[in-house]
C-alpha cells in the first residue's frame, strides 16, 4: 500500500520482491518505518527458513509479537497515507 501510494510497483517476476518491499518501506514512509522494516526483514528470512529448511524456528512468542507489529505497521502506513496522500485514503463509514 505504502509503495503503491508513493508511486512504485514491485516487480514479482524479477525475484526478491519481498525483500525489496521491506527495503523500500523506510524510503517511502520515512525513518519512522526503519525499525519495523528491519523487524519484518528478520521475519522474512525466518519465513524463508520455515518454508525451505525447518518449520520450528518460529516460536509462539514470535507469533504473538508479529501480530502486534503488523498492527503497528498498519497504523503507521494508514496515518502516513492520510497525511501525505489524503485523496487515496479509504474513508471509514
Amino acid at each position: 500500500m505504502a509503495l503503491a501510494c508513493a508511486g512504485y510497483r514491485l516487480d514479482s517476476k524479477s525475484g526478491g520482491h519481498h525483500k525489496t518491499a521491506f527495503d523500500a518501506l523506510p524510503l517511502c514512509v520515512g525513518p519512522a518505518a526503519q525499525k519495523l522494516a528491519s523487524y519484518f526483514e528478520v521475519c522474512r528470512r525466518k519465513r524463508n527458513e520455515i518454508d525451505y529448511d525447518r518449520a520450528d524456528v518460529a516460536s509462539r512468542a514470535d507469533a504473538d509479537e508479529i501480530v502486534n507489529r503488523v498492527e503497528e505497521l498498519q497504523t503507521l502506513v494508514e496515518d502516513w497515507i492520510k497525511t501525505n496522500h489524503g485523496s487515496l485514503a479509504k474513508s471509514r463509514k
Partner: protein
Amino acid sequence: MRKSTSAEAVLFPHTRQRVLATLLLHSKKEWYLSELARTLEAAPAHLHRELALFCEAGILRRRVEGRQVYYSADPQCPYLAELSALVRKTMGIDIVLAQALKSLGPRILCAFIYGSIAKRQESSGSDVDLMVVGDVTIADLLPALAHAERDLGRSVNPTVYPRKELVQKVRSGNHFVRAVLADPAKTFIIGTRHDLEKAAHGRADKKAQDQQVRARRASRRRRS
C-alpha cells in the same frame, strides 16, 4: 563428519584462531597467561608458544610488570585494522555477538550459535544461526543484531524462546528443539551448556528458586 572447510580453519590452527580473536577483539584489554588459559580453556604451555609467535611477528605486544606478563594487540602493527576486520568476520563471530548482546544481559538466560558456523562447516555466505533463551523478543534483539551484522558482514537469524516455551517444546518432543539441544556443536555466547540444560528441563536457578520460596513465605506471614 564433514571435514572443516571454513576460511579461518584454512588460514590458522584452532588455538591460534582463538588467541587472535580474543586479543584483537578486546583490543584495549591486557591479558595475562593464566587468565587467557581460563577463558579459552586451553593449556597455558600451548598458549605461551602461540603468544610468543604473535609477539615475534609484531601483532601482539608483551609488557612485564613485576612478576606478571601482560599480552595485548600491538597498536603499532601496520595491518592491525585489516587483521581485526578479518578476525571479526571469521573466527571472532561469538565475541562480536557477545559484545552486541551485553546490554540485554540479565534478560537472557543463555544464547548460543548453532548450525554450520558452530559446526565449523560454514561458507563465506553462511548466515549465523543464533538461539536465545530468555525474556526478550526479536524486536528487543534487533538493534544489537543490526550492529553485529554490520561488523560480521553476515546475516544473523535469531530463534528466540522464553524459558517456559522451551520447556514445553522439549516435553512435547519438538524435533527442531531436540535436534539443536542434542547437537554438541554449539558456541555459547551467554551462559553455559549447563544453564541451557537447566532451562530446557524446567529447573529454575537454585538462587532464584530460593528467592521465590522466601517471597511466598513472607506473603503468607503478612496475610496471617
